[in-house]
């Protein structure tokens, strides 16, 4: 299977995923802040209005029965203004109606820290949404993840929170020939081993997967082989993949951009303890997280508020006691 040397940034596969699904299913439509003439605040939705028109691409928020909306938040920080609807209307309705009313909606947009946007615009919402039964929460890392997972999210009959990352929109990745097909999907709820290794399992999601791979490359020179797992989906979490890896490596480090308390890493720790992999651990699990503070603006402070590659390397070595 050949790898076509096509480099696409995350926002292009997001665009093509939406374009393909809009074409495939008439019930799909897009609700976006500042789409059309402003061309989508971060230009992810650019050109879609020109292609599909007002009926399918809209800045008007409204609920239409029998349809499959894709709702874009300019950033997930603004989703807090609508969060009651995401949780109480979207997540819980199928349950409350005992199966009568499904809610096939996708909420997508950039999540987490950007660059210099300060406290109110830098929060990671993975843990907030993943806490809630009735929601699926997806967090892609690279272009293939973005495309395949978004197509699955749009085809999914339940509400999906799709957490993109603004800093990844401009990063080019190679995309395989397979991933260029209109039917390419990646299943929700399945993690991917991005890099195999025997000494330590490193689990992450979104942008920090790249940091973990960079850390792994540095550690490989010292003879430490990391197995880097890209979660891809936060809820339902693929705990089995993590367990299988930990049973091989005996060490686990989780890496996330969000705050530590009650976060993704905390959940992974709890689940590992509750399952078969616990007895295979040679050391407590280490969580690498954002610093437990609101995001400061000044660059030097901002740089020290999020995990750096050196923090990941340090944590892995401490976990391995080397």
């Amino acid at each position, binding site marked *: 299977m050949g790898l076509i040397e096509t480099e696409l940034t995350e926002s292009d596969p997001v665009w093509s995923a939406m374009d393909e699904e809009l074409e495939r299913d008439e019930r799909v439509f897009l609700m976006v802040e500042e789409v059309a003439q402003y061309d989508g605040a971060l230009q992810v939705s650019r050109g879609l209005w020109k292609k599909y028109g007002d009926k399918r691409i809209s800045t008007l928020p409204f609920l239409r029965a029998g349809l499959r909306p894709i709702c874009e938040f300019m950033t997930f920080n603004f989703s807090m203004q609508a969060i009651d609807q995401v949780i109480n209307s979207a997540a819980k309705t199928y349950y409350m109606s005992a199966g009568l009313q499904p809610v096939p909606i996708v909420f997508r947009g950039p999540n987490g820290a950007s660059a*210099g*946007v300060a406290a109110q615009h830098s929060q990671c919402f993975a843990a907030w949404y993943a806490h809630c039964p009735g929601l699926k929460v997806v967090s892609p890392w690279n272009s293939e993840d973005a495309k395949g997972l978004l197509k699955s999210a749009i085809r999914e009959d339940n509400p999906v929170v799709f957490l993109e990352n603004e800093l990844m929109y401009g990063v080019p990745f190679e995309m395989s020939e397979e991933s260029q097909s209109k039917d390419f999907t990646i299943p929700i709820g399945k993690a991917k081993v991005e890099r195999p290794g025997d000494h330590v399992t490193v689990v992450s999601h979104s942008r920090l997967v790249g940091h973990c791979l960079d850390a792994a490359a540095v550690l490989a020179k010292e003879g430490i082989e990391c197995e880097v797992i890209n979660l891809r989906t936060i809820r339902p979490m693929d705990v089995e993949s993590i367990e299988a890896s930990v049973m091989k490596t005996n060490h686990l480090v989780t890496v996330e951009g969000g705050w530590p308390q009650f976060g993704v890493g905390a959940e992974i720790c709890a689940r590992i303890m509750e399952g078969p992999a616990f007895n295979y651990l040679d050391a407590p699990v280490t969580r690498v997280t954002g610093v437990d503070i609101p995001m400061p*603006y000044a660059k030097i*402070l901002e740089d020290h508020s999020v995990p750096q590659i050196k923090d990941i390397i340090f944590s892995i070595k401490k976990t391995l006691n080397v």
Partner: protein
Amino acid sequence: CTLTTYIQTYLSHQETKESKCDLHRLEEGPPEKAELTRDQGLQYYRTMQTIRRMELKADQLYKQKIIRGFCHLYDGQEACAAGIEAGINPTDHLITAYRAHGYTYTRGVSVKEILAELTGRKGGVAKGKGGSMHMYAPCFYGGNGIVGAQVPLGAGIALACQYQGNNQLCVSLYGDGAANQGQLFEAYNMAALWKLPCIFICENNKYGMGTSVERAAASTDYYKRGDYIPGLRVDGMDVLCVREATKFAADHCRSGKGPIVMELQTYRYHGHSMSDPGVSYRTREEIQEVRSKSDPISMLKERMLSHNMASVEEFKEMDVEIRKEVEEAAQFATSDPEPPLDDLCNHIFYNNPPLEVRGTHPWAKLKSLS
């Protein structure tokens, strides 16, 4: 030159200079005649010109990547900030959204501290921790990043004024985009019910990011949106109109009549923020037309010159002084050091014993002081 008193006609709409300002549920509005003294004129000119030059300097620093993240500039709208400040007391309260640099200045923060905050230095008004959208001062509550969220806060500040019986009021600002937010209507309701001393002011600059008011709002009469709350609409490019309308609104609130809504028709020359060129949803001709016909600073200057209240040389001298002030502030803002790392975790809680904060991993134990 001694103090010259000048009486002039109150102007409201740009189209017909004789028309009154628009009123909603008000028997009468602000006075048709406003008095401008020479000192006042020079002061308003200085304030507006300082804001203008400060914002243009910020534009420059942003393009040099010395300012990062978000930067929403206020040039074009100076008459609003200057006029409002002239109509209230320094002990009154004010809260606005993210296009806040102008208000930060009128509420008493120096250009130096504003620019140093934009460049993220320890000499910034928020010690570099807030950035463009999060600057504060006594009686000035920011600087708020989430559209519309500041308005219920403003109503709350007005509630505090009423509760404390201190005859103060709160000016709660928002834009034409935020005017469609549900939380505004909740704030209107509570303010009206409890007769809170709150002036709700909509700075209508015709565009919410890239969406023109016609495409965003079922009703673009923002001064009427308070429904049961009286309202008035004035020319936000004329500093005297803004001042008189604000004084009128302040009297209304202070006399116990409850809240009032004010719409200022204004315009921003820059795009929504520094990442928006501002020309994909409006024409360059439109921007140029406003600049040449309705610029707030030029209008005031012309008015004062044509009535011999000041000379061309005086204005030139002021311009030179202001440029110097802004240049020195920029110098400071680019040379002041960044905040120290041990400030990273401070200011989580007020009045709290020191606490330990988790860093990026369990071995990083950081310290937080109030």
